[in-house]
């Protein structure tokens, strides 16, 4: 549950960093709208996690350190240039849409309800991010080079999206959680199709970050997460009782 919530929360915060700085007004709005959807989804997951664990949404969001976050390494990577942001978004959206489709059939009615709600939103996200990967990849020499460089840099973070943690196995067998391993083939097929249309190459280095059970799901993060959290959490940590 925290894995699902933290993916949404961390990426929403990253997208929020584009507020007022988007390359065009429409894209500024698009980034923040996607971020808003993800923040809403994070809140739904955190509210459910809180019913089990007793913590409030704000306790989860503002009073955990990076080692307690369970998000993918991919979503905590810095925004970089706009190709970096959209490559990150597409690789995540394409996985997210497949994951939510699985979770919408979960035996846990609450999980299925949240996933079904989120799925309609994320379908819309992947259409946009795939469209931008194609547009920049099949664009000018500069936009192509930047999008290829972005994919090359981010590819090593995609492996852990399909790793199943030992603790998840029982939930998968019970029909509650999705088997992330089964998402790899459809994800790769979709990514190959989009990258082919974008005239981009799939990076050929197979080495992946977060292997051996030491990745985001286990709380082992890149240094970028703690810096991002410092900005996200500073206000409630400095003034814990502040209300506005």
């Amino acid at each position: 549950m925290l894995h699902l919530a933290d993916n949404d929360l961390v990426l929403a915060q990253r997208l929020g960093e584009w507020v007022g700085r988007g390359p065009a007004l429409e894209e500024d709005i698009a980034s923040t709208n996607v971020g808003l959807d993800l923040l809403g989804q994070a809140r739904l997951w955190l509210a459910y996690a809180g019913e089990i664990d007793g913590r409030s949404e704000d306790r989860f969001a503002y009073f955990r350190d990076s080692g307690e976050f369970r998000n993918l390494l991919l979503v905590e990577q810095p925004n970089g240039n706009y190709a970096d942001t959209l490559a990150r978004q597409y690789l995540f959206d394409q996985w997210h849409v497949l994951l939510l489709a699985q979770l919408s059939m979960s035996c846990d009615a609450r999980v299925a309800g949240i996933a079904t709600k989120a799925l309609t939103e994320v379908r819309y996200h992947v259409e946009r991010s795939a469209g931008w990967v194609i547009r920049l990849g099949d664009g000018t020499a500069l936009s192509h080079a930047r999008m290829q460089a972005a994919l090359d840099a981010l590819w090593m973070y995609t492996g852990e999206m399909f790793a199943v943690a030992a603790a998840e196995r029982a939930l998968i067998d019970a029909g509650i959680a999705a088997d992330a391993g089964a998402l790899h083939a459809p994800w790769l097929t979709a990514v190959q199709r989009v990258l082919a249309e974008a005239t981009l190459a799939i990076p050929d280095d197979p080495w992946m970050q977060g292997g051996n059970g030491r990745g985001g799901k286990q709380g082992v993060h890149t240094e970028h997460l703690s810096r991002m959290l410092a900005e996200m959490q500073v206000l409630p940590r400095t003034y814990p009782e502040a209300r506005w």
Partner: protein
Amino acid sequence: MTPVLPDEPLPRRGPPDPRLVWRALGTVADPELPAVSIVELGIVRGVECTADECIVTLTPTYSGCPATRVIEADARAAVASVTDRRVRMLTALAPAWRSDWIAPEARRKLAACGIAPPRPGGAGPAITMTPDRSAIRCPHCGSRRTEEVARFGSTACKAQHRCRDCLEPFDYFKPH
């Protein structure tokens, strides 16, 4: 209890009457779409009245919609104006809200205030790279020669479009 001023209608006493509750909810507008009520938008999913309480179930349009809390507060206040019994607000995520739930009358009202209503059928089950964006009617001049400017707009529920005949930009309520 706050004193009731003489020129304000007295709050209604007694157990909640479902017809009055629905009518009260019908006066609550979505703050981002003031032309239509939350009942017409399909946000109110149920009203349950007993002798000593009224339970109203709402569903969010978009999970991150910032208007959700305002809508809940406004709906609660509206119900409290027709009964003095306890009002409970519940949120239902399933079944997930669909733009097809927007009432026909509300679709006309949206168009009348410059927002093109969503195409029937929602976003559809398929994930496509080339979604069908044809034939969205311009709410200003009625032309179907329109184009998408951006997939996201001024609020979570809208996209930005433009008419190629009258050249006016307009909001399009995203099919969902």
